[in-house]
């Protein structure tokens, strides 16, 4: 009950923020809410299974493109529903064909997937529809987009919390530790991984769909930018991908840092991103939250060792 109270007050506070911050601040909030949701959804699957997916932008881009294609044809809620349906179907097909792969092959495949989808859409637009770019005419301001992302983010964290306590959450942790033991304990490996992969990818697709109106003009090279995939991974890893609040703790400071870096050093942004990626993986393999706990623990261990020595 206490937690629900705190959650309600926080969400209430977060939703009035756009009124206090200006246009620039609201723009930042859109990005923040988007990346917190992306990182949490990513970690929902990749945290426990340890399958590093670089396919984030494949789904994100498909979400954005669905809105670009359908925004003049269907009412907005139906457009979102279509985006979710397309993302889920794509995740189902991709999952069925790749989740049997060992981790390292999965990483490479997932990276290739984003490029493949981008090339397919480019080819289709150029050769079939004859229009590469598309316009999104939706009357949605930054504020409305932020509220939608906030709602999606809250649902995502809620879902992640629920999964952690569920049978499925336990199954995925076991799979992450030892697939052989998991299978011999009665866990259906393929199905457990698939369910989570589809849930995670559907949320990611929706983030792309909801953010799409921010662009007004959309073409494949804009919405399928691989940086989105890499940022999502670094954010989740920095905070700790196996913890509920880890991705959020990683996404908030990193998003603000990236905003500042890309404004300050636009030409060197990719290099800085790469360096940061390496630093995070090298220095904090289990994320900051684990590192903070680790800082506390050694003291106790040290004390007990002294006592026995």
């Amino acid at each position, binding site marked *: 009950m206490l937690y629900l109270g705190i959650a309600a007050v926080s969400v209430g506070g977060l939703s009035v923020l756009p009124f206090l911050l200006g246009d620039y601040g609201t723009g930042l909030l859109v990005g923040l809410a988007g990346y917190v949701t992306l990182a949490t959804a990513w970690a929902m699957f990749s945290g426990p299974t340890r399958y590093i997916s670089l396919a984030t932008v494949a789904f994100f881009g498909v979400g954005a493109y669905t809105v670009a294609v359908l925004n003049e044809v269907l009412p907005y809620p139906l457009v979102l529903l279509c985006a979710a349906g397309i993302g889920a179907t794509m995740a189902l097909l991709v999952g069925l064909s790749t989740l049997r792969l060992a981790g390292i092959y999965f990483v490479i495949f997932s990276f290739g997937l984003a490029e493949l989808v981008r090339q397919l859409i480019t080819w289709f637009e150029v050769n079939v529809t004859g229009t590469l770019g598309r316009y999104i005419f939706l009357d949605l301001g930054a504020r409305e987009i932020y509220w939608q992302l906030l709602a999606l983010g809250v649902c995502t964290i809620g879902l992640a919390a629920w999964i952690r306590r569920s049978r499925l959450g336990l199954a995925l942790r*076991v799979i992450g530790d030892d697939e052989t033991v998991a*299978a011999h*304990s009665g866990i259906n490996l393929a199905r457990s991984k698939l369910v989570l992969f589809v849930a995670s990818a559907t949320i990611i697709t929706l983030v792309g769909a909801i953010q799409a109106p921010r662009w007004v003009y959309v073409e494949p090279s804009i919405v399928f930018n691989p940086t989105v995939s890499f940022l999502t991974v670094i954010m989740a890893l920095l905070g700790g991908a196996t913890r509920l609040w880890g991705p959020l703790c990683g996404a908030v400071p990193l998003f603000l840092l990236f905003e500042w870096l890309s404004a300050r050093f636009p030409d060197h942004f990719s290099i800085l991103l790469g360096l940061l990626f390496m630093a995070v993986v090298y220095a904090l393999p289990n994320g900051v939250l684990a590192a903070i706990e680790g800082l506390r623990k050694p003291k106790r261990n040290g004390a007990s060792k002294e006592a026995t020595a």
Partner: protein
Amino acid sequence: MSELLTTDALTKRFGGLTAVDGVSLTVRKGEVLGLLGPNGSGKTTLMNLISGALKPSEGRLLIAGSDLTGARPDRIAKAGVARTFQLVRILPSLTLRENVMVPAAFGPDRLWGAPLEARVTECLETVGLAARAGQAASELAYIDQKRLELARALAAGPRLLLLDEWLAGLNPTELHEGIGLIRRLEETGLTIIMVEHIMDAVRALCPRCAVMNSGKLIADGPTDAVLSDPHVVAAYLGEEDA
């Protein structure tokens, strides 16, 4: 007595090597079968075929009357087959309690909530690890990892328990305790197939023995008779432990 496990000419080839060669075996409910044979004779491969880790090249596998030839390991686990591994496999990032929860939650009984907790506590108590339930499994010493693995297999509530050299690598005191533990499981009526090299343990625990050599079953019957069979002595016992 009813037949719990039947293998019918079960065969497994790895390239040119036939690791298990036409093994037909029947185990009835409540039996404890010792599986012997020299190194590389195919004992672990046979256990892998029965538990679904490997798919047979030929032959059939029946568990409690249903044909599970070629079934995935999770289906076979749900049919009530639990196992330990020759090279002990614990789930290092989970606690002892969580390790033991897994087959109870996903196996034949699909427990959750209070019944799951009760099953976990009961199994940890059986192997003497209940006091350390909250500890991380990665912190355990070898013998305790073996105990944990057994507790995990028991948590499934198995009809058939496969033990692959579970007693190997224990010191004499631990071995004595281990034999006592398996004897108590036997007394509850559990059906067990145990691969074992330690003859004292086989004599103490297994009324019936089967012997493999080069993938083939060369003897199967009452332990005393099998251990004095000249073929068995020639193939196996003559080398080391007579």
